[in-house]
């Protein structure tokens, strides 16, 4: 009873703040702006041999005086073209203002300019014409390249193609997934606000003196944020669905899992930290670590399906490949879900300890020892058994 009452109260607090409205509106515009941005990137990935970054636009200053290359260079975004006469071109080149001067069928470079190398690189790729003569091909297979090297290259190419496909795929648009992460960040920002502001304004002490268990206080904060988040994600997904950006609502399941993980991690960080500044710093670092882990775990999927259960992102791949069965999804989702539950549990425990309000705050190492190592060592033997069973079942499912 107390829990639901407090959750409603926290929800009111969130919606009352101007901040939420602002952030919500801004988010909407950011989402609208980011979608075309990612479309550009997926176009770039389509042809991985020729990547022109948006920042490289007009990067290479080139002078041209009547050349068959004029049109094709004008159309290429990387060149900043100066249409000049023969003399002007020569002087521009001499003053190092352009890195290359194209006159008729002669291409002159500003020899020691590093950009001249870049210009040469791009100019060489500019035209692609068939040779005048028909070449004759003979295949004479010999082991001149070590097999491992070939295999590594094949893998790299496959990985690049896979990323490109994923970004363009109709069912699960990676870009929209990334866009939706914004909502998660906003929600975790609110959570930090709810927890840390009580410490900074010292209103948490009053909360602690209420006849309510402290874990209920924390959970009510987490629940209210989760409710806001779920509503928001659902809203964005439906918006995107109607815009035709998402065709399978089902593939958004991993997003909810991710958001649960991030929220639980945030709650732990904000329970531990003393001030906003500390929380902000800790959260940035932990998010970077978390994403590095999640991304690398989904990369495992390429090499071995066994490790893929480590990341909910691999679920996306699974669903996309059409390999999803209900039990398969449950097994892939379970580790993340369990970790999130553990994180919530630990943060609720820590929240109940007075040191985190009144100090002196125990060191990170001490907390780790008390909260993780001791119970973990007891659980370890159990976990090992479960893990063995788990991989077995997973194998069965995937195969």
């Amino acid at each position, binding site marked *: 009873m107390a829990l639901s009452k407090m959750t409603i109260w926290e929800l009111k607090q969130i919606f009352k703040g101007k901040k939420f409205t602002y952030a919500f509106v801004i988010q909407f515009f950011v989402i609208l702006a980011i979608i075309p941005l990612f479309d550009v990137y997926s176009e770039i990935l389509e042809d991985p041999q020729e990547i022109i970054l948006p920042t490289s636009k007009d990067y290479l200053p080139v002078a041209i005086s009547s050349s068959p290359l004029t049109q094709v260079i004008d159309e290429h975004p990387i060149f900043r073209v100066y249409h000049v006469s023969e003399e002007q071109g020569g002087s521009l080149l001499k003053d190092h203002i352009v890195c290359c001067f194209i006159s008729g069928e002669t291409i002159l470079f500003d020899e*020691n300019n590093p950009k001249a190398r870049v210009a040469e690189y791009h100019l060489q790729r500019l035209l692609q014409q068939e040779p005048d003569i028909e070449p004759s091909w003979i295949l004479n297979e010999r082991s*001149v390249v070590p097999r491992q090297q070939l295999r590594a290259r094949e893998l790299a190419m496959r990985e690049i193609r896979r990323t490109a496909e994923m970004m363009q795929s109709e069912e699960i648009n990676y870009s929209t997934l990334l866009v939706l992460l914004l909502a998660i960040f906003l929600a975790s920002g609110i959570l930090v606000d709810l927890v840390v502001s009580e410490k900074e304004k010292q209103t948490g002490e009053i909360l602690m003196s209420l006849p309510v268990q402290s874990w209920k206080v924390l959970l009510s904060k987490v629940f209210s944020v989760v409710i806001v988040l779920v509503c928001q994600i659902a809203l964005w997904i439906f918006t995107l669905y109607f815009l035709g950006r998402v065709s399978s609502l089902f593939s958004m399941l991993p997003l909810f899992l991710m958001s649960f993980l991030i929220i639980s991690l945030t709650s732990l960080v904000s329970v531990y930290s003393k001030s906003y500044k500390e929380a902000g710093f800790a959260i940035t670092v932990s998010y970077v670590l978390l994403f590095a882990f999640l991304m690398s775990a989904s990369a495992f999927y390429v090499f071995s399906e066994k490790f893929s259960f480590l990341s909910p992102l691999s679920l996306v791949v699974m669903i996309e490949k059409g390999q999803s069965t209900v039990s398969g999804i449950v097994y892939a989702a379970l580790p993340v879900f369990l970790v999130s539950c553990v994180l919530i549990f630990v943060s609720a425990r820590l929240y109940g300890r007075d040191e985190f309000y009144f100090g002196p705050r125990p060191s990170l190492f001490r907390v780790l020892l008390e909260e993780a190592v001791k119970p973990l060592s007891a659980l370890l033997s159990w976990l090992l058994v479960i893990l063995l069973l788990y991989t077995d079942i997973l194998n069965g499912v995937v195969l």
Partner: protein
Amino acid sequence: MRVLTLAKKEFKDILSERIYIITLLLQVFVVFGIVFLGLFYAQIQHSITYVGNVYVESDDPLFLEQISRDERINLVSYPDRAVAVITVEDGTIHIEMRVAWFTRDVEDVIKRAYTNMRFEWGTVSRGANPIFIEIMSSLLIPLVLLLPIFFSMNILSDSIVKEKERKTLEILFSVPMRREEIIIGKIIPIVVLGLLQVIAWIGLLSQIYPYMYHVLLLILFLVIVMAFFFSSAVAFSTYAGTMRESNLFLILLMMAVTFLVFIPFPEELSFLCRLSPVGGIVMLSSNQGLLATEVIPYFVVYSILALISFFVASKMLSKDRYTRLG
């Protein structure tokens, strides 16, 4: 004089914060990480297109010259370990492929050599990988140089909002100093700190990556950019009620300005994306020679922006309804 005293005090405050020092040190890793990222990116680009050893026998010196320019192959003098053996004789091409997988790539190499034979190519001195040069000077160096500015912006807004939250800003305002002086006193240490970092990163980068030009102009440009960002940070944090709010505003401003380059504007509006400071930094740092007509707009635009935001900031500070909490 009083401004300097305040500046000194602020400087000490900043250096006594452990988190700022940690962030400062973290940036060193970011700088190295970014150079590594550039190298890595260039290496990946190279290795996904690299074919391997190719043996070429040609009676056409132009063809031989062009094919030796191609960075995707390595010309060898014995055919034993070659992936492909190309023979050009009396206008005919024979290709013997040893690894079928590379057939399309070798075809592409030959096509390119034939296409480029029609032009007369000047010489370019060999050096770093062109992809590395491109990504470093067009993306990574601007990011490294903007990083300390963004970081300092946060310190500045923290220090203002903190004073507001603790109600010490009102005490500070009751000191016989003009409000502009107080703000300048707060900005000076930040600018000094930001400038020191920028200079340090430029020094460090020029050790690893030797192709940076017009360093003094670049620093001047960054100072103007700093003036713009820091005055807007003052304006934002005077407006914001809490640290969280001001941080949110600042992050949005940073993203808007930095990622201006990434927004695919339609053709008529494409000049807008050049306005990002990234464009100015790229222009100044990567070109050996500069045209005044191309450089001056950046300085003018950012000077005007800096003046406007300074004006807005001082106007806001003079109104008590913004400087008081609630």
